[in-house]
Every structure is written in C-alpha cells, then in structure tokens.
C-alpha cells in the first residue's frame, strides 16, 4: 500500500509539474504583451514589465513562477488592477462548488435509481426507457439542454428564475442542467455493472442457499456493483467542470466558469491560466483520490505495483 501510494503520488507530482511548465511556456508564447495599450510610452511599458517581473530572463521568471505556485500564488490579474488571480478564484469558487456539488449528488442519486431499476427489470419497457434517457443525456450537449431549460422553464412557463444569482431557487436550473450528463453516465454504468454482477456465480450461490431476492440484491449485487462506481468520480468531476464553463455563462452564475468566459473575451491571460491550472490540479487530485479509494474498497485490486495475474 505504501509503495503504491508513493508511486501514485509521484505520478501526480510529475503531471502537475508538466502542466504548470506547459502553461508557463505557452503563456510566454502568446503574441504581444499583456499591456496592449497604445497610449503607453516606452518608459511606462518598461515600468509595467519591471513591476510584473517580465524584464527578467525566462529561466528566472520560470523559477519564480514555480516557487510562487507552490505557495498558492497564481500571479496578478492583468485586467483587474491590483488583484491577484488567487483572490479572483477564491471569490468565484463558491457558486461553482455549490452547483457542482448539488449536481453530483442529485445526478448520482437519480442515476442510481434509474440504473438499478433498469438492471432489475432487464429488457422491460422500464429498462428501454431508462436506456434511451441515458443515451439522450449523454449525447445532447449540456449547453443545448441548458438553453432549452432556460427557455421553457425559465422564460416561457416562468416556473423558476431563468438566470442570475439571488437566492436558493436560482441554483435549481443550473444544477438540473449540470446533472443531466451525471444522471446518464451513472445510470448506464450502474446498469452494466449490475447486469454483470447478477450473472456471477456467487449470486447464484446466494439464491441457491435460499436467500430472498431483496437480500440478494442489496447484500450481494448492489454492494459489488457499487464499488466500480467510485472510478466514475474522476470522469464525472471533469464532466461537471466542463459543464460549469458553459452553464454558468448561460445562467449568469457568478462562478469560476463565468469568470473564465469573461476573461477569454477580454484576454486576461493570467486569470485564464490560473483557472485552467486550478481545474487541472483539482482534477488530478480527484483521480488520485479515486485510485486510493478504489484500492481500499475493493480488496481484489492489487495495490502493489499493479502487476496482477489476469
């Protein structure tokens, strides 16, 4: 376990360094300077460059950037004078985290119910309906679905506020829009897993020894089918992060995703890079966590170097 943990930790660190380095050099390759103002004269430009440390050699800048990064400092925003990227992110993270978390919980619960009914009533109308729903949910782009929700529920029927962020009811539509892919992914995954487990010999044994159906399903099938769902957390997290980028823009949620689209429009590169880095770190950490969790939950997984005989 210890060696495995170390190995995973090592990969995580290497990936993080690769991403941070790539981000830094890509930013250096961007055309022009961050200060695209014609009214600036030579001296002012030089002062600005000196203030942000852009007059030093690239190697020094890189080292400084990396050491700042380790301390959680992502640099200063080029557009909001005097504000650091870390500040911008911490201000914006709340709404994103809230709707992301709600979507994850809601989506997993609905997906679980759909997937389990689907597997228990295999090849029935219920099964087909839920499979169709899952395919639709996975295929229709979240922003198309979000736009539809906003148009019908928000504007035409006026049931819920179509946009902005002034109270709890404002979180409902973005959460729903975000959870669609989660529902579809979880439902599909659970269905396949359960069908797989139901046909296992140990389920047959449980039935043969006279256990009633409900107990077989809860004690044997569901328990074993749920373990691999943990592995879905990584992809689901990235799904939700991708989703927040567009869905926050659609529903005007003052979160990270909306800040990102805003920064893209005004070319605030340091904030763009900061948010991308933040998202990658979050994602990589999530995958790391999932790997560890999976190893702990399923004793069949070999944690020592992954050299399993199969």
């Amino acid at each position, binding site marked *: 376990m210890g060696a495995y943990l170390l190995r995973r930790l090592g990969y995580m660190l290497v990936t993080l360094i690769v991403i941070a380095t790539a981000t830094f050099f890509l930013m250096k390759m961007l055309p022009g300077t961050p200060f695209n103002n014609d009214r600036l004269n030579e001296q002012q430009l030089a002062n600005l460059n000196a203030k942000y440390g852009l007059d030093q050699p690239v190697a020094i800048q890189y080292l400084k950037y990396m050491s700042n990064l380790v301390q959680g400092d992502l640099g200063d925003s080029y557009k909001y004078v005097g504000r650091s990227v870390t500040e911008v992110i911490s201000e914006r993270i709340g709404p994103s985290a809230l709707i992301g978390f709600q979507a994850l919980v809601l989506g997993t619960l609905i997906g679980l119910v759909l997937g389990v009914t689907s597997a228990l009533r295999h090849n029935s109308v219920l099964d087909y309906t839920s499979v169709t729903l899952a395919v*639709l949910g996975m295929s229709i*782009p979240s*922003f198309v679905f979000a736009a539809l929700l906003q148009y019908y529920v928000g504007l035409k029927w006026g049931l819920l506020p179509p946009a902005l962020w002034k109270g709890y009811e404002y979180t409902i539509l973005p959460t729903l829009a975000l959870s669609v892919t989660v529902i579809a992914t979880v439902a599909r995954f659970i269905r396949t897993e359960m069908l797989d487990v139901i046909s296992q010999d140990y389920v047959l044994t449980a039935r043969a020894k006279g256990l009633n159906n409900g107990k077989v399903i809860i004690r044997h099938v569901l328990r074993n089918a749920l373990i691999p769902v943990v592995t879905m957390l990584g992809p689901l997290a990235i799904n939700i992060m991708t989703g927040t980028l*567009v869905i926050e*823009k659609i529903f005007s949620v003052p979160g990270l995703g909306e800040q990102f689209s805003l920064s893209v*429009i005004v070319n605030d590169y340091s904030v*763009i890079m900061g948010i991308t880095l933040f*998202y*990658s770190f979050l994602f*990589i950490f999530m995958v790391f966590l999932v790997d560890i969790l999976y190893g702990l939950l399923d004793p069949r997984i070999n944690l020592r170097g992954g050299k399993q005989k199969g």
Partner: protein
Amino acid sequence: MSMELEKNKNNVQLPQSVSTVSPRDTISDDLFVPEPVDSSLQEQISGPMKSVWQDAWQRLLKNKGAVLSMIMIVLITFLALVGPQMSGRTYDEQNLLFTNLPPKVAGLEWLGLDGRDNNGVDQYEKRGITENFWFGTDEFGRDLWTRVWKGTQISLLIASLAAILDLIIGVAYGGISAFYGGKLDNVMQRIIEVLVGIPNLIVIILFILILEPGIFSIVLAMIVTGWVSMARVVRGQILQIKAQEFVIASKALGASNSRLIVKHLLPNAIGPILVTIMFTIPSAIFFEAFLSFIGLGLQPPLASLGMLIQDGYVAMRYFSYKLVFPGIIISVLMISFNLLADGLRDALDPRMKK
C-alpha cells in the same frame, strides 16, 4: 442419411400403449440398423462460410438503433455536402432586406414552418418577400439553411480530421510500444501515464489561446491529448494478439516484422480501433461546439454547429428557430454516433454471440 432414418422409422411398430407394455419387450435389438457412415462428409461444413466482418455486419443490422443511426449519419452527411448548394446563396452572403426571417417551407406550414414570428405576423407577407427561407435567416440576412449545413460540414470535417489523426498517431505509438516491448514500452507507457492525467479540456483551451483560431488549430488542439486513448487501446490489443499461437507460428516460419504487423497484428486489432474512432467523432463534435460556445472557436463569417448554437442562443428569446435547427442537428449527430459506436462494439465483441 435422413431418408434411411425415415425408412427405419416406418418399419418399427410403435407400441400402442406405453403404460401397459414395457418398451423393452416390444423393441428388440434386431430392429436397429446401423446408420451408414460416410467419413468424407464428417468434415463438411453445412452452413455458408461467414467471415468475421460479415458476421459482425449481420449482427449490426439486427440492432435497430445502430441501423437508424447509420441512416441518420448518411443523411446528415449528404445534406452537409449538398445542402449549402441547394438554396443558391452562399453561407456568408448578407442581405439586409432579409434580416431575421422566420423559417418558411411551402407545403410544411402545418409544422410551424409558416414564416410567422413569435407574434403570429407573417414576416414574408408583411415585407413582400416572395422566396422562402427553409430555416429562416439571421440578423444579417444570411440564409440559415445554407449556414446550418455549411456548419455541419465544417463540424464533421473537424471531427473526421481529429479522428484520422488520432488514429494515425495512436496506432503508431501503441503499436510500436506493444510490438517492441521491453524498455521502450516502459518509457512510452510512463509518458502516456503522465499525459492521461492532464484533462484534455485544459490542453485544448491552452492551445486554442496561443494558436490562431481556425479549423486546423482546433483539430491540432484536440489531437494533442486525443491520441492517448487510441494508443492505449492499440497497445492492449497488440499485446494480447502478439502472445497468440498463430503469431508465434508465423514468426517461427520466418515472417518479417512488417509482415507480422501488417498481416497478423493490425487486422486482428481493427475492431476495437474502429469502435474507438466511432467514439472519438462525437466527442470531437462536442468539443468544437463547446469551444465555439465559450468564444474560443472559429471566427465569423465561417459557420460551425457550435457557432450557430451560440448565435442562436443569444437570439433565443425572440428568434428561437435560430437555436432549434443547429441544436437538433448536433443532438441527432451525437446520438447517432454514440449509438452506432455502441452497436459496433456489441457486434464486434465475440462474447455477445448467441
């Protein structure tokens, strides 16, 4: 052979009532005649020969969803190629006399394609326009029929380019890694493990930012990490096939490496490769649309499904038709590709054989 059996059956006097007389008493051994055995027929294969592909194809045809998806994909691709030429207007031709016209199709008025706007006013009548715009027009008076199909064409082009490049890089990388194995494989796999950790969305956004926006830069950004999954699939397949007896036999007979790869390894790995491609295409379509939606996509007047959806979304409240058509097309395309990929995977998986 069966004739013989018939004859024997007729000769046997079946007992009238089984319950009273034991069969042992009425059927004696001399009633049995040995079936003449023709040893040359034993090895004969009765059913018609079917190759793996014919077999898979037939299984695919039984899958209604996959067949429907194939038809939809062919239809949409056809319209994407022919559609932009049909109305006689180009995708970037502006005409301020024709701005924001709702869709109107002669004969399909009952479907709502009657040229009336949200207030029920027939804009065509009001402005005295005689020609019909099937998907309506945008705020610059550009014909949306042409733009939507042009956009579909570009989205499909981006997706197929990304898929083809993924295929080339992935097959080469995965193939080399698995075929030569050893230290090389080890190093190549470590590189992949680092790359897999990087979320592809992040890479795509970074690349789009430094490259000039355009079709090629979007494709490039998508393949930077896109090939990794293909490489993993190919490596897994090749490793598995490499250890099988027919490959060892071929090697023992002195087959060269290139012959082994071309004749034995790649043809046997092609199923999973095909399935991976089919899953790459919808995700590429999605990423293009996604990038366009957050403002990192192509530049106007070029059209793509994502840009049209973005334009349509902005005008959704008053001109919902601008969002409806590209929205439907992208959804149908994604559903079809996903279903077809699912169907292909099931059809090519021998474990699914009944």
